[in-house]
């Protein structure tokens, strides 16, 4: 079975939006606004969501906050089967308890990152960590996706040997990897190693332009230009160029690279939230949760000018 066939067989294919999470003035999740964002993306044809992943500032939220938000969006019409829920903790008991509670709300897919720990740990310890999660969660029919963070924070990537052992021991539960690494070779190595066993989804959009066509991706940029990402993973560049008055015609892969150039070295979550705040005309979308910070005024003004030049189109 190829990676594409596996993606279809487990129902994990297409664009999974790495959802930005709106905040109230007190920095709690703005649940109505989150539901509205998901409903709006759904109405554009994008109904698969990663909640509290990398773009969703997952590590900044407590489990109870996540569960409350999940309950709210399900109540607002989002299908629980279309949610991949981020889990960040270094306590396997806490992770297992969270999975049990979320399963009770109908969630079946979980994106679990490696534990953060000051001391070095070996493959046996890492295997035992996930093995305990699966045993203590003790739920039927749920799916574990490992979140490879690619050195974006202190959490380690899981070595291939550990993932191979996990797949061997829990073939029905461990079904996929979401690779956040910016180096395309990292994703290619995972695809080579697990092509016939696990779904591997890249979540670094410039890599998608290289890996295209691919059956599935997780994308933060899809918050603002979901159709572009859809065309990128479908390798459908010719028929879906963006025509901007007075400017050249840009193909979807060009648009991804243009936006990545605009975002540059700015913190991506804050920068994308600023962009979304322009789309919704709602400054409150700019809020981020500490330790993230909103952009300083000078950076904000520069980015706003760059967004104007980028000129996001309604059909993107």
């Amino acid at each position, binding site marked *: 079975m190829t990676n594409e066939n596996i993606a279809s067989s487990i129902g994990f294919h297409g664009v999974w939006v790495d959802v930005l999470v709106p905040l109230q003035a007190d920095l709690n999740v703005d649940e*109505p606004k989150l539901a*509205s964002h998901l*409903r*709006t993306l*759904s*109405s*554009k044809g994008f*109904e698969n969501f990663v909640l509290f992943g990398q773009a969703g500032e997952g590590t900044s939220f407590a489990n109870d906050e996540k569960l409350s938000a999940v309950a709210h969006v399900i109540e*607002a*019409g*989002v*299908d629980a089967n279309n949610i991949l829920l981020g889990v960040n903790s270094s306590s396997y008991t806490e992770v297992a308890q969270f999975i049990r509670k979320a399963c009770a709300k109908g969630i079946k897919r979980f994106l679990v990152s490696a534990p953060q720990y000051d001391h070095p740990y070996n493959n046996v310890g890492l295997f035992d960590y996930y093995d305990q999660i699966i045993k203590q969660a003790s739920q039927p029919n749920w799916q574990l996706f490992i979140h490879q963070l690619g050195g974006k924070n202190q959490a380690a990537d899981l070595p291939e040997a550990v993932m191979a052992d996990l797949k061997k021991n829990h073939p029905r539960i461990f079904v996929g990897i979401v690779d956040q690494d910016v180096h395309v070779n990292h994703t290619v190595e995972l695809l080579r190693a697990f092509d016939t066993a696990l779904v591997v989804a890249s979540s670094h959009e410039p890599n998608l332009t290289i890996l295209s066509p691919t059956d599935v991706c997780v994308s933060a940029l899809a918050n603002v230009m979901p159709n572009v990402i859809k065309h990128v993973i479908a390798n459908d560049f010719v028929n879906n160029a963006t025509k901007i008055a007075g400017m050249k015609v840009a193909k979807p892969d060009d648009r991804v690279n243009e936006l990545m150039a605009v975002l540059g070295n700015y913190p991506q979550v804050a920068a994308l939230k600023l962009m979304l705040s322009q*789309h*919704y*005309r709602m400054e409150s979308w700019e809020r981020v949760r500490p330790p993230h910070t909103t952009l300083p005024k000078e950076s904000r003004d520069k980015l706003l000018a760059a967004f104007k030049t980028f000129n996001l189109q*309604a*059909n993107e």
Partner: protein
Amino acid sequence: MNFANTWYVIERNNHYETIAHEALVLLEEGSYVLLQNFQTHHEAHEEHKRLVLMAIGDAKAKLDHLKK
């Protein structure tokens, strides 16, 4: 997701509109910008009002700037 009986705020011909799903699907693709979807007319209408008030505020600010 079921969109029957839901409401949208859209921008068309430089104007904001609140429009039912059943009416939106009849519009020509590309003739409008979809801003947000809401479960109720009330929510969509409140968002519509907010956007109009913002546009008025922006226009006032521009006029004030020109007067200076």
